[in-house]
């Protein structure tokens, strides 16, 4: 077993920063009660100005006159944590959530993504694109990887022997020992993990109890690691809120791109697609505007989803400025990638057909694009359908059938036409009320057109035009 630990030291701050365009303005996260407001996290420009984590808000305001203070939201941080777990699920089926970290089992994934240096750079690339600062370490145990990631970014320990050597010099206060053992042991002259591991076990058990020994066993790989594996949720729900009001649809594109990017990340990890999702634009006083984005087939590519959503959103009238946006995807059907020919002769920059159809639908309307299939009904009005789900036997038509059909028959004017074929009697439809009784002819009009016309039986000459043999 090999475990990779992705430590997210600035999870809460990065979750806030990634939603904003990058600026050099100082920004802090604030937590605590109304009487004792303290800084929870500070960004780089704020730290350069002398602000630090744990500082009182009043002290920070005395140091720096202009900075943005955002309320720390534990629920949002938890949300980002879960989103990243969904991302990690793409690389491994064993994903465990640790405080401020994600640990994934990679020994089985190395065959696909490996070797480790390439795999690691892949992870870092993804995290940078998502906008999260990170530290990554690899170790034979999950707990050991978690500890090593806190000590040394990029450390990769493959064997138990190397792990012993890597753990030995670690100072106890960084070893994440349970129950405050990390603070009392240095007072006894035990400063590193190596010293602690050499101590007799019964003495440790007497003084600190069983949890410390269990922890040390997990760390060195001598004992079992019991962890609750992460399972991705079945729906996707992400909300983004901003402090100012957005009045124009164009300004919604940046947050939309982020939301869709997160959705695509989640879908890729789950190996699923999305066929229908809802964008809720929240306003200050009225009910939220709902924009439903429906696709012809399950998709998961961020660019395609973004273009579809943008097409729908651009046609939307905003009754009021928007203060928050929410993306809800409940139906996540399996994603089936389209098959491509190895010897594809199409131009290299070709847009896939599905993407083209989505683009047309986005601008022209949901019902603007359809396919026809013939049914077994002999009546011309019912002989074809746009439905996709009807599976019907192949029937080959032997009688002449036109290529154009008029939506409804119209009287044929002009000089009397020349009859080329017919009559063909269609008399049916008693079962659903669409009863008809017609004699169909193929005629040539004076203009040279080939027409499909009918007349009621026994009334030749009163032609009704129903189609063209174009």
């Amino acid at each position: 077993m090999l475990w990779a630990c992705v430590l997210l030291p600035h999870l809460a701050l990065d979750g806030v920063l990634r939603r904003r365009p990058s600026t050099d303005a100082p920004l802090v996260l604030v937590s605590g009660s109304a009487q004792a407001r303290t800084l929870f996290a500070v960004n780089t420009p704020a730290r350069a100005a002398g602000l630090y984590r744990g500082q009182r808000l009043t002290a920070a305001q005395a140091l720096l006159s202009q900075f943005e203070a955002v309320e720390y939201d534990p629920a949002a941080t938890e949300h980002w944590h879960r989103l990243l777990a969904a991302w990690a699920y793409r690389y491994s089926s064993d994903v465990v959530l640790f405080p401020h970290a994600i640990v994934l089992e990679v020994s089985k994934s190395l065959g696909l993504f490996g070797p480790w240096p390439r795999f690691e750079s892949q992870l870092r690339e993804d995290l940078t694109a998502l906008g999260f600062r990170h530290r990554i370490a690899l170790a034979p145990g999950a707990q050991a990887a978690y500890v090593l990631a806190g000590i040394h970014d990029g450390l990769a320990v493959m064997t138990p022997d190397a792990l012993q050597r890597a753990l030995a010099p670690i100072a106890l206060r960084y070893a994440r020992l349970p129950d405050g053992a990390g603070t009392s042991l240095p007072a006894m002259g035990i400063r590193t993990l190596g010293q602690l591991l050499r101590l007799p076990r019964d003495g440790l058990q007497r003084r600190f109890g069983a949890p410390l020994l269990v922890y040390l066993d997990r760390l060195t790989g001598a004992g079992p690691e019991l962890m609750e594996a992460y399972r991705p949720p079945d729906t996707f729900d992400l909300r983004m809120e901003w402090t100012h009001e957005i009045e124009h649809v164009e300004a919604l594109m940046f947050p939309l791109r982020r939301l869709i990017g997160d959705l695509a990340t989640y879908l890729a990890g789950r190996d699923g697609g999305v066929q229908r999702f809802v964008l809720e634009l929240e306003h200050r006083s009225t009910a939220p505007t709902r924009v439903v984005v429906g696709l012809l087939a399950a998709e998961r590519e961020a660019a395609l989803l973004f273009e579809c959503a943008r097409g729908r959103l651009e046609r939307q009238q905003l009754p009021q400025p928007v203060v928050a946006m929410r993306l809800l995807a409940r139906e996540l059907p399996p994603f089936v990638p389209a098959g491509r020919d190895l010897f594809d002769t199409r131009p290299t920059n070709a847009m896939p057909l599905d993407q083209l159809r989505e683009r047309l639908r986005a601008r022209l309307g949901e019902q603007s694009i359809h396919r026809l299939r013939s049914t077994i009904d002999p009546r011309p009005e019912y002989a074809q359908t746009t439905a996709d789900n009807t599976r019907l036997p192949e029937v080959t038509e032997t009688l002449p059938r036109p290529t154009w059909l008029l939506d409804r028959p119209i009287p044929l004017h002009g000089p009397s036409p020349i009859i080329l074929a017919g009559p063909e009697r269609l008399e049916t439809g008693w079962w659903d009320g669409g009863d008809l009784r017609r004699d169909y002819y193929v005629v040539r009009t004076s203009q040279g057109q080939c027409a499909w016309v009918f007349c009621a039986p026994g009334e030749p000459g009163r032609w009704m035009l129903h189609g063209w043999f174009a």
Partner: protein
Amino acid sequence: MTEILLPADGVGELQLLLPTLARCTRAGRAVVVVAPPYMPYAPGWEARGVVMSHVDIVSADPRDALWAAEQCLRSGSCAAVLAWPAQADDRALRRLQVAADTGKALAFVFRDRRHAAHASPAALRLELETQPSLQVRVRKCRGGNAPSRPVPLSASWS
């Protein structure tokens, strides 16, 4: 791009194309029909060998139809695109021609016969005539001499 000039609808214009469309759709390539004047009648098309599950029918108003046709041609994923630009000017047709070249797609544009006198950017211009019998006159043929005599066509309904 091929421009087909018609005296009226339903003189056999699709008859010219259906063998090509049948070949494309049987090879699994997409054909898009943008804003047709009438509803395509699936039994009739299938009787001539077209696989209707590869035929996309786009309904759009005239202004969007040109945009849609251009998108389809440019995408490179369609084998053929059929369009009926009613009031398209020379510039719009040129855009379609360029899009068809970019996407390596066949564009078929149907227009009224009265446009025959105007110049056109189409690579091939065909005019359908019904008098004295159904025949095709080649008005323009890029890279070759247009035959001086019209080519007769057989009746289209059988």
